[in-house]
């Protein structure tokens, strides 16, 4: 069945467009308050050390300095998104290079920066551990001996050294599965430390008034959660804290953390002035909350015909010095180590490990890019051993309607197979390549729309102009435009008559914010619910005006149709003009909504086509086909934008991006050294969207924010193997690694 939409499904241009292209949109670093100071932090140069002494007295007396703080000047409470294990300023010891040890607030950024040079810190270096597997050994230094006292651990920590979360998933009897298998394959993989690469660094502005009320501007995409974290660490009630809406200059999972906000408050308190803190990009690359490195071991049992029987998997995430930067203690995507396949016996172990590296956080589909790189590479390695085509091998095992997932769950409307078939078709799978050293590789993953909570009101004024009010910040995805389209569709009014107003955190009780491919579903259903409530009220009003019952009134094309002989039609604007007498008044629909877990997921299969230079190992991605199992598309332009941005992020992950740490010190500390893709790097991109299926979001839509960045690395790794027979099992796939793999292959030749 196709439903005729008027606004949904059209590429409505974003309302914020004119402001964004002319420099008028306000971001956190642009906020300027009267009397505002600049805050800067001094960071640890050591990965693990005891702080013997800090002396800020010279900094305190420097010109323009209004406050200089150490950990001793503020309460000892620890902060965290869930697990509270991170000091606001280090007290007795530092656990990574870049940890904050002192802070100053001064009249201008130059004075603050100069004052940092006047702070004397005496350290006593302690033995450090950087490798996660080493950290798990009993002989390694214990980085958080007081872990039992921390707030926020959902389960007791593992008895293993430095392991603050050990999670297990699975089903069946994996040992039995291996016994029944004809062949068993074991491979290990590793994935690197990666920065989210948003162009806007973390920033915050904090103002505290004489009564202790706190106002903040922060580029944080989950402001209600942040408010709750800050309330806990500052020990003041949430209703004393207001976060004002601000545009966010890129998120990709990285802008959900508290970052400098807890500290900025103490600088404001101690200086008696509003304080702004802006991380420069050097600090971003050194000490923000990058994507976790992972070591993954996979063991898989198969029948000779290629049927998967058993999967044993473990992933060790190098979480760095603190677990505080994750909204859950573990990374949910670790449960994808069974892949998008039907596997009867599965056992998955995930370990979150403290080390003396930068603490890691969330990035776009947390854990899934690591996991699917490993799983999809492993699949091709098995296929090669069995002499099967990787596409055929996937088709044999891919999860289908009615199958249990590898962790014992189930989805409705499973369309994994269709995405694989369409990807093969669109990429010319199996056809000869048009040049030497070219290869194709395939990978599949899935990402369901995420659940969450939201609150909306939709108001209509006397002129029939509609306003959506929600406390949902703009992270750049186009969510506000998507919501305007949803509301316009429901109220049958032109989308240009619907505007979106972002509210502050005082306006509603809670909003989960952006993330987890959640917004179209959670915020979408909330806005739709509020629009429905408004529509019901308008119908009631129209019925009253025409002295009939609401059952006899319908709304079509911006006009009420009132049944009767003859039927009467009356535009919405006439009803609103008659009913709303006072200027400035409005009729308001409301909705508070808590989304449950989606019954459907969304599969994505990609095929990468690469050319490898066998002399240098350089990989050039020529083309990527990305196939998506979608619902209805609300805005094709913003939907496609998410796919394109995700694919190129995935390509950066696969080929070039790595925060290189030596003994915990990151050495590529500028965007000139930490390479992200640029315009000349982008390959030809072919997007295939399956026929819209059902989805839990408005008008049968789904989320699209994360999926496209997940399979890319696996597809590229498999394409490199197809091109030159070189199997690279660690990300990123640099020319050096490719060359080494080519030489290994040649030396293994009989």
């Amino acid at each position: 069945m196709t439903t005729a939409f008027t606004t949904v499904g059209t590429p409505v241009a974003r309302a914020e467009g004119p402001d964004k292209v002319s420099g008028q949109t306000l971001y956190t670093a642009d906020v300027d308050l009267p009397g505002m100071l600049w805050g800067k932090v001094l960071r640890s140069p050591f990965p693990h050390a005891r702080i013997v002494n800090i002396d800020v007295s010279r900094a305190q007396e420097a010109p323009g300095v209004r406050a200089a703080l150490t950990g001793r000047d503020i309460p000892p409470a620890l902060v965290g998104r869930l697990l509270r294990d991170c000091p606001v300023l280090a007290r007795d010891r530092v656990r990574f290079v870049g940890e904050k040890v002192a802070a100053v607030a001064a009249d201008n950024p130059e004075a603050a920066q100069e004052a940092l040079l006047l702070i004397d810190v005496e350290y006593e270096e302690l033995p450090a551990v950087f490798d996660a597997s080493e950290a798990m050994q009993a002989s390694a230094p214990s980085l958080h001996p007081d872990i039992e006292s921390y707030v926020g651990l959902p389960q007791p920590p593992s008895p293993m050294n430095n392991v603050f979360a050990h999670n297990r998933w699975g089903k069946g009897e994996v040992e039995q599965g291996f016994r029944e298998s004809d062949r068993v394959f074991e491979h290990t993989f590793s994935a690197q430390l990666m920065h989210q690469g948003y162009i806007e660094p973390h920033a915050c502005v904090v103002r505290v008034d004489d009564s202790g009320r706190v106002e903040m501007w922060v580029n944080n995409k989950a402001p209600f959660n942040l408010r709750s974290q800050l309330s806990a660490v500052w020990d003041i009630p949430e209703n004393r804290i207001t976060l004002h809406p601000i545009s966010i200059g890129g998120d990709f999972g990285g802008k959900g953390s508290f970052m400098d906000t807890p500290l900025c408050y103490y600088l404001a308190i101690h200086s008696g002035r509003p304080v702004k803190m802006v991380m420069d990009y050097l600090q971003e690359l050194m000490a923000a909350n990058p994507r976790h490195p992972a070591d993954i071991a996979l063991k898989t049992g198969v029948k000779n015909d290629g049927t998967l029987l058993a999967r044993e998997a473990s992933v060790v995430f190098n979480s760095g010095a603190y677990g505080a930067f994750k909204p859950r203690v573990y990374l949910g995507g670790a449960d994808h180590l069974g892949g998008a396949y039907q596997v009867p016996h599965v056992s998955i172990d995930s370990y979150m490990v403290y080390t003396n590296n930068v603490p890691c956080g969330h990035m776009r589909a947390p854990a899934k890019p690591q996991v699917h790189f490993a799983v999809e590479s492993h699949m091709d390695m098995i296929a090669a051993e069995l002499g099967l085509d990787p596409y055929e091998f996937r088709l044999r095992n891919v999860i289908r309607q009615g199958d249990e997932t590898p962790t014992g769950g189930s989805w409705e409307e499973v369309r994994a197979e269709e995405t694989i078939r369409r990807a093969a078709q669109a990429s010319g799978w199996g056809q000869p390549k048009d040049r030497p050293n070219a290869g194709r590789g395939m990978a599949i993953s899935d990402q369901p729309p995420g659940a969450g909570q939201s609150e909306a009101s939709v108001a209509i004024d006397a002129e029939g102009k509609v306003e959506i009010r929600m406390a949902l910040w703009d992270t750049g995805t186009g969510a506000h435009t998507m919501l305007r389209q949803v509301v316009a569709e429901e109220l049958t009014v032109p989308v240009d008559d619907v505007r979106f107003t972002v509210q502050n955190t005082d306006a509603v009780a809670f909003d989960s914010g952006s993330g987890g491919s959640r917004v179209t579903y959670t915020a979408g259903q909330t806005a739709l619910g509020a629009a429905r409530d408004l529509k019901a009220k308008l119908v009631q009003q129209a019925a009253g005006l025409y002295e009939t019952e609401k059952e006899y009134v319908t709304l079509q094309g911006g006009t009420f149709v009132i049944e009767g002989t003859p039927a009467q039609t009356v535009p919405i604007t006439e009803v609103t003009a008659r009913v709303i007498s006072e200027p400035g008044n409005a009729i308001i629909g409301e909705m508070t909504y808590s989304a449950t877990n989606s019954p459907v997921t969304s599969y994505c299969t990609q095929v990468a086509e690469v050319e490898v230079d066998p002399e240098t190992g350089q990989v050039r991605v020529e083309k990527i086909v990305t196939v998506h199992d979608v619902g209805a598309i609300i805005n094709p332009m913003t939907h496609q934008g998410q796919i394109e941005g995700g694919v190129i992020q995935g390509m950066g992950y696969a080929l070039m991006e790595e925060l290189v740490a030596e003994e915990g010190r990151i050495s590529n500390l500028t965007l000139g050294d930490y390479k992200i893709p640029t315009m000349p790097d982008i390959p030809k991109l072919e997007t295939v969207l399956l026929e819209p299926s059902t989805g839990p979001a408005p008008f049968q839509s789904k989320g699209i924010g994360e999926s496209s960045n997940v399979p890319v690395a696996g597809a590229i790794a498999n394409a490199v193997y197809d091109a030159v027979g070189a199997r690279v099992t660690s990300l990123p796939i640099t020319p050096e690694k490719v060359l080494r793999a080519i030489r290994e292959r040649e030396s293994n030749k009989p």
Partner: protein
Amino acid sequence: MDYQISLKVNSTDYQQQVPARRLLVDFLRYDLGLTGTKEGCSVGVCGACAVLLDGEMVASCITLAVAADGAEITTIEGIAEGGRLHPVQQAFIDHGGFQCGICTPGQVIAAKALLDVNPTPTEDEIRQWMMGNLCRCTGYYGILESVINAARTLQEQAR
């Protein structure tokens, strides 16, 4: 030490005392309040801080304000003409050329700088020229489309 500089920014004359080490990006953003120019990488490689200095694109995060003495500067706030968006700006709206918008001022400046000197660039010339402007949201496809279409519009207008 402070220096007196006089310069024209978006057609307005300014005479100002600035410290020797004040960067042009900070001068524009915090002394003049023109916060449309963004600071990303702080080392002149991401392009977010791009402005036109006497018609040439420069990274204002690695340019001293004193180096702009006597110059004419155009920032993102000065691109629209007579309250109407420049065709480059309109193209970025129509063709998905931005998402979060933080790199957009620099992208628009870079695209305009290209089309000012090369009104009919090939796709490859656009890709090479725009290499110095990082974007993490779009994957560049929408930006490329925007520049191609802006060139087309400007050509049509010139006819």
